[in-house]
């Protein structure tokens, strides 16, 4: 969900007026975020987009066996978001026991388990 908000500005940057709050937000974000976090954010955007497309398909065309895939996208999204939260240096204080590596291990494990269920559900 965060990424949905962050994504549109990515396209607006050039066109819009400087004073726009979203724009300021965008700049703040752009400056103060490390490449790695941005990498994640890009991934998040991707997931959201695929999720949205599938959701549209499910609503517009056929909702036949949809839950698995939404769950797939959403699940992957939140896992990635969690990873982002955990490795975000800003949150060091919160995650004393979770080093970025540990976080990533968790992330990998979670994703594998998730994908297992997703494919199991594909039927």
């Amino acid at each position, binding site marked *: 969900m965060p990424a949905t908000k962050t*994504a549109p500005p*990515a396209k607006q940057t050039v066109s819009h007026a400087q004073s726009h709050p979203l724009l300021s937000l965008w700049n703040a974000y752009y400056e103060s975020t490390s*490449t*790695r976090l*941005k*990498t994640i*954010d*890009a*991934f998040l*955007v*991707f*997931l959201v*987009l*695929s999720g949205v*497309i*599938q959701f*549209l*398909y499910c609503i517009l*065309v*056929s909702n*036949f066996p949809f839950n698995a895939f939404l769950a797939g996208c959403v699940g992957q999204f939140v896992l990635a978001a969690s990873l982002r939260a955990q490795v975000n240096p800003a949150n060091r204080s919160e995650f004393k026991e979770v*080093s*970025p*590596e*540990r976080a*990533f*291990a968790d992330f*990998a494990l979670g994703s*594998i388990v998730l*994908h*297992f269920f*997703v*494919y*199991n559900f*594909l039927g």
Partner: protein
Amino acid sequence: MAVGVFSWFLLALVVVGTHAATLTLQSPRITISSSDASQLRSEPLSLAHKPSPPLSLGPSDVLKLTFQVVDKDDGKGVQPHQTFLRFFDEKTGEEGIQPVKVTPGGKAKFELNMARPPSSLPPSATDPLKVSLYIGSFVHPPVQYELFDLVVPPSQPPAQHPEEVHFHVRPEIQHTFRPDQKLPPKVISAFFTLLLAAPWVVLLGLWAHVRPQVPYLFSPSILPFVASLAVFEALLVQYWVALRLGQVLFYAAILAIPTALTGQRALAALGERRLGKSSK
């Protein structure tokens, strides 16, 4: 059966005349009156041919039949042993026999009140009941007359035994199947499938923009882990395509070990690098 009876009747007629005198009817007459006693129809009966149109009774009408049984020779009234009216429905084969009371003088009067029909009246459908008169006696030769056709209001079909239905062909039964759920046109599905390439454009675009360096990707510590994770994903896809649950769990268990080891190494390496950085 009727035919046969009739042949016997003829045969009987041949024999007639040898001894006791035959019987006949005198002044047979029918009267139909409605419930309020107003006469609807009244006429003498000829024994030769039936009256037409056939008599017909409404649900509350009353049919009155009067005649006298007399000896053909001396015309004296006779009380025969059997004076039966037969109501017969040729279509259904239903039959009812109704004795008629005859006075010793041979006078006979029969009343059929449709409001309270006698139990002998058979169940009737649309077509008329043939009404015939049987006169039988121990002394006189028997005679029978086809009196008239009678149309009575239809009645309910007679009560059925529970087993009865099994003795006839029964109506066919078709099962109505659920319509099998229809798939959307392949084109649309295909279109959306292709649409899923769009996020890739975005993703690659963004990554191109962010331009993350991957200096260590091919370092011996990292690559194996990435590879094993990739294999894992491959396994899962394969599971969807072909494998059964048991198999996939088995392979996964095997695969988990190297993944765990390589992961250990990779992350350890990663950690060192990070700490190295922060210490700098």
